[in-house]
């Protein structure tokens, strides 16, 4: 993975088509039999992004770039805007100002008549194809069994045949260790199992960018490790661009190439995990880590 200082700059709108943010997977990181997505992976760029909720400014002209295939963890106190970044990328929120780029295309805006206008549903649908998200509360569909949770998107959105979708679902359930739960109902599963299914469901859509929003926060302590191990494996075996919000600092250290420390909607400090957790430069980061690690 490229360290921060060699991170390729995401394109500006003018040069965007000439320098697409994409990466070809390294052969040795692509075991042929995993059901994990491989292929051109886009980078992400936030350009002076502003997000407000009412009078509360959550992101203040935020600029940052994530390289293709890079694994970035966002840490910081509650309300610092970490989750909002993931929700903006999943199009669950709209930016108030600035532009978000995924690869060489703007997520939040589209061109119409030579002008940049806010994205419509069709544009969002196109852009969402690259992004998947795993939620803190799993959010499996309770009106479907495990298999249908995993096949619904591939069949109805990607247009995959039902047989192929079932095959893919079996492979993913096998990978997350829940092959025997294929016909189970979500309510019959433990929190950890539900979260594994939710991870498999996100991967079934073959995203290029995976967003993990405090995915172990709602789990009983003894279930956390299993889910984290699974995510470590996924990170290792795929070339997904990964954005992860977590309060589990050990997990953040293991999984990320780079850690961004947020406070009040801005990046306080960034660097490789060894630096952020070992020798943070900013007092704010030190205070935060001390508070988190003390609990």
């Amino acid at each position, binding site marked *: 993975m490229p360290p921060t200082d060699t991170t390729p700059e995401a394109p500006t709108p003018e040069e965007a088509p000439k320098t697409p943010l994409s990466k070809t997977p390294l052969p040795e990181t692509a075991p042929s039999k995993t059901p994990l997505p491989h292929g051109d992976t886009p980078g992400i760029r936030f350009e002076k992004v502003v997000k407000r*909720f009412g009078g*509360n400014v*959550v992101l203040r002209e935020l600029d940052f770039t994530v390289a293709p295939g890079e694994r970035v963890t966002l840490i910081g106190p*509650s*309300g*610092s*805007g*970490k*989750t*909002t970044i993931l*929700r903006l990328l*999943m*199009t*669950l929120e709209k930016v108030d100002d600035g532009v978000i780029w995924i690869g060489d295309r703007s997520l939040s805006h589209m061109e119409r008549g030579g002008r940049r206008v806010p994205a419509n*549903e069709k544009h969002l*649908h196109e852009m*969402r*194809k690259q*992004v*998947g*998200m795993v*939620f*803190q*509360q*799993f*959010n*499996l*569909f*309770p*009106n479907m069994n495990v298999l249908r949770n995993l096949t*619904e*998107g591939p069949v*109805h*959105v990607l247009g995959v045949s039902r047989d192929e979708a079932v095959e893919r679902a079996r492979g993913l359930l096998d990978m997350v260790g829940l092959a025997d739960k294929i016909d189970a*109902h*979500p*309510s*019959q*599963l*433990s*929190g950890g199992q*539900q979260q594994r299914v939710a991870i498999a*469901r*996100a991967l079934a*859509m073959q995203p290029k960018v995976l967003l993990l*929003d*405090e995915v172990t926060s709602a789990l009983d302590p003894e279930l956390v490790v299993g889910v984290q191990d699974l995510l470590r494996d996924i990170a290792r075996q795929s070339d997904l661009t990964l954005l992860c*919000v977590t309060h589990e600092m050990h997990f953040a250290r293991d999984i990320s190439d780079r850690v961004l420390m947020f406070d009040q909607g801005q990046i306080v400090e960034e660097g490789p995990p060894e630096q952020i957790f070992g020798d943070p430069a900013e007092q704010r980061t030190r205070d935060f880590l001390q508070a988190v690690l003390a609990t």
Partner: protein
Amino acid sequence: MSDVLDSFPLLLRGSWITLQLTVYSAVLALALSLLFGVLGTTRGLAPRAVSRFYVEFFRGAPALVLMFWFFYSLPLIGLRFTPMFAAVLALGLNYGAYGAEVVRGSINAVPKAQYEAAVALNLTPAQRMRRVLLPQAVALMLPPFGNLLIELMKATAVVSLVTIADLMFRAQQLRAATGETAAVFATILVMYFVIAQLLQLLVRYLERRTDRMLGRRPRKGQPELRTVAAGAPGVGGVG
């Protein structure tokens, strides 16, 4: 009393008409409820305005007045309906307006996290509604729909005023013929009650099926469910 019992087949014929009226009106009301209820949850101003107009107009209009209007007024401009059609139309439009509010409220009550998960899977707005939100909203709709269905059945008792020979109509015929006011009305009270119970059984059956679909009660031959509900409301927002 024996006169009333002798004429029981007449009352049965009347209750058959009552049941038919109930079923036809309920089917129409259900279709209108779903259509205008779903429209009421969309973002577009125009569909929501149409839904609002329908609900406010037909909820505010008494079913009997609508029925008279369809049966006695429209023929004046050349539109002639059979009594049954006029009654079904009036009851369906009236109860569809109540039902639309139930549908709208139930869809809005599905946890927002479910909508967000559907967006994250890139389902289109129509797919989100049909595959995720509506199936879950049905569980919330059924109890109030049960109430409305029984209300609707009872409201059919006014259709004799547009010459339909329903249970109430037959009862009045019988009362006029026998003079047994108390016995006749007591009998049809029981008959209305029995019809209401049949409808309630149907709704209960649908509630059980929906609960099984949503994993709220075990399927046959499956172990007990955990109390943890899948898709519990998420903690969205800033963080």
